């Protein structure tokens, strides 16, 4: 090195790389690439920004700066400031939540709501203790008792009916088989006895049972009539019971639609296509006006319960189609593998097919849930007072006459939060369950 003469035109050390041109790197480059890459794109960007700015300039001062939280009427709001009159929400908040539920009893729906999370915990997270599932199974009756009140022995009587049916199917066959009765016949007889026993219990014994126990040990809550339920409480009752009911019924319908038994398949297809072919409103009309015609004369049947039944039927038809998609999306080899292991139909469905099919259909299932929850607003048309139904009395109130946007915005926000949370949860679930096909 030392002896060699350096050549003027050869660089002695490597030149450090020069930074990229400002226009292609960093924030500016990103903006150039993504926002202003052409005339059309630039115009679109500017228009969108102008639109966003316009909306923000309209909404932000109205909602956050000039809004009034404390006033007793729209007049009072306007005297303070000309922004959103949120005082109406401040004043009517509890009505939006509970409807006309008696004030001193409101702890009951709150307790039911808290217990709801305990009940769905084992369903949402596999880490929860399995024993809680028993609580989940009993929860519907507990919630019914808490919200509607009445004697505790009514719901207990209903449970006893189920228990009688289950006990017949579980314990009768061995007894009958010992009496030299054919095994299959014994099972059939046990199923029949179970159904008959439960039906007899519900038809004839429940009321006597309830009265007898009430005289011995009266545990009862003050009854609340359905007309007093309203607001988000009502939406949640209809939505949650519809969701809980539609999934199992939907699975059964989807399996029925795939069945080889022509009659079963026909019934399922007919039910699904009928329900999907008519608007929910007509079904609500049925619940409102027609359903009581098809029940024994003199049956008094709560309107909310009728609505829940129809909403559940409606959602289960859609659920069945979603799950059918999942069943069809499963490779045929899975069905064949289950068969070749010698599993019978129910085992192969329960252990092999359904876990995979349900996993594929999670997005669709959650979409159906979201749709069902949104559709609970339709009950205003048959006169129930869900949040949208409460708008009319509030706007008819002399104090709040003329108020529009605040109320719609508030209700929309409530539904948005719930539905958006559900859709995010489904995305989380999809990612979590996606183990891929290795």
């Amino acid at each position, binding site marked *: 090195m030392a002896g060699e003469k350096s050549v003027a035109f050869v660089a002695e050390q490597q030149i450090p790389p020069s930074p990229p041109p400002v226009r292609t790197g960093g924030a500016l480059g990103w903006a150039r690439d993504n926002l202003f890459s052409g005339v059309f794109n630039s115009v679109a960007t500017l228009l969108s920004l102008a639109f966003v700015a316009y909306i923000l300039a309209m909404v932000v001062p109205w909602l956050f700066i000039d809004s009034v939280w404390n006033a007793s009427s729209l007049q009072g709001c306007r005297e303070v400031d000309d922004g959103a009159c949120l005082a109406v929400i401040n004043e009517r908040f509890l009505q939006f939540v509970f409807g006309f539920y008696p004030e001193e009893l409101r702890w009951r729906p709150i307790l039911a709501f808290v217990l709801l999370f305990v009940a769905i915990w084992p369903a949402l997270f596999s880490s929860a203790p399995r024993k809680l599932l028993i609580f989940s199974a009993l929860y519907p009756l507990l919630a019914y008792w808490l919200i509607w009140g009445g004697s505790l022995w009514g719901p207990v009587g209903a449970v006893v009916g189920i228990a009688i049916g289950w006990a017949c199917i579980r314990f009768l066959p061995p007894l009958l088989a010992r009496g030299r009765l*054919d095994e*299959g016949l014994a099972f059939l007889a046990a199923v029949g006895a179970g159904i008959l026993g439960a039906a007899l219990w519900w038809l004839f014994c429940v009321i006597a049972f309830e009265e007898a126990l009430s005289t011995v040990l009266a545990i009862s809550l003050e009854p609340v009539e359905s007309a007093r339920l309203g607001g988000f409480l009502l939406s949640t009752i209809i939505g949650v019971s519809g969701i809980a009911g539609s999934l199992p019924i939907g699975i059964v319908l989807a399996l029925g639609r795939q069945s080889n038994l022509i009659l079963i398949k026909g019934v399922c297809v007919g039910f699904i296509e009928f329900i999907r072919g008519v608007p929910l409103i007509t079904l609500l009309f049925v619940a409102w006006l027609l359903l009581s015609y098809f029940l024994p004369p003199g049956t008094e049947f709560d309107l909310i319960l009728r609505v829940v039944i129809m909403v559940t039927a409606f959602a289960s038809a859609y659920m069945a189609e979603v799950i059918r998609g999942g069943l069809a999306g499963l490779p045929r080899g899975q069905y064949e593998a289950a068969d070749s292991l010698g599993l019978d139909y129910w085992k192969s469905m329960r252990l092999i097919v359904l876990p995979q099919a349900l996993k594929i259909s999670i997005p669709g299932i959650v979409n159906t849930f979201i749709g069902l929850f949104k559709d609970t607003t339709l009950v205003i048309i048959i006169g129930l007072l869900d949040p*949208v139904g409460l708008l009319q009395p509030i706007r008819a109130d002399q104090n709040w006459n003329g108020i529009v946007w605040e109320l719609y915005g508030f209700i929309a926000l409530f539904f948005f939060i719930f539905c958006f949370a559900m859709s995010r949860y489904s995305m989380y679930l999809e990612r979590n369950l996606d183990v891929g096909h290795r």
Partner: protein
Amino acid sequence: MSSSGQPPPEPFRVSQLLYDTRYRSYTIQIFALAVLMLAFAWAIDNAVRNLEALGKDIDFSFIFETSAYDINQHLLDYDSTSTHGRAAVIGIINTILIAVMGCITATVIGVLAGVLRLSRNWVVARLMTVYIETVRNIPVLIWILFTVAIVNEVLPGVRSFRGEDAMTGLLFDSVFITNRGFYIPAPVFEAGSAAVGVVLLLSMAAAWYFGRWARARQAATGQILPVFWGRLAILVIPVLLAFFAAGSPISLEIPALKGFNFKGGIYMRDSLIGLWLALSVYTGAFIAEIVRAGILAISKGQTEAAYALGIRPGRTMSLVVLPQALRVIVPPLISQFLNLTKNSSLAIAVGYMDATGTLGGITLNQTGREMECILLLMAFYLAASLTISGAMNAYNRSVRLKER
């Protein structure tokens, strides 16, 4: 020694009905049929007894009785002396009107939003995401009430079109947007317009035939004809000639302010406008997601292969990507159209008289025949849905990949 004949047939045992797969399916089905028929019989028996107790019967003759109520928006002749059946037909036409209008605008909005959500422009894509997520997560009923409120509260009243500093209508003072609804010009057909109509039909047929001929010619010779311009010329020129030859028989009747309201032209009520906008924006968000999924479903290799063959970008889109994307897009799109039609029954909440408003609303209340009215209403919606979904299935079969 050993005899190898058939094993003696086993005697039939009752348990085979349940445990032998040869018989089990029959057992189950007969059992199910029995339960089903019992349940139906029970329900119908209850209904008969309940109706008897109320002194009612099933009777559809109310269809021919005078309805005695008005319908504020009707495309066919109707007044309060018409029959209930006529009122139901008016309602059904109103349902179809809102459904067709809504489907068209929802598709436009949805395709635009779906394509823009895939745009590389960050701001535009985010804006579309916000639109889609907001709209999809709020019930359609709230949107309908909200848009009707916007029409009623934000748009100018009829009064502001009168007086000194009056507002002028859009499009050369012919379209008036007010808080009572929109007033648009109405076409007036005079004698001779039938001839123009016939010419229009003929030129439509000719344009279709021209397209076919051009394609056949291209397949045979490789020459490409300017199909679009040719079709446009075939469609427009003869019709214009016929229009002027017949002495301009078709004119526009422009709404004009008379007294307290506009007279003439076509009046689209506030409830119709609000319902239409809400259903379009709501269904548009769902269609946007379908369009986006359809475009994403076509693998990039398809576009690259088309480029490698030397096909230009526009033709790549129309010949390679779109036909494949449409196969994914069309079935859910049509089910969204069905949803829109069914959601249009929410018109009853804002007082637009569609089938639910007439047949399931006022007619039901006036006649007290809830069983018959709801049956007819369900039959209408069911027939519409089944027809459309049948057409969809036929389309699906025709575009299905022919796998071998």
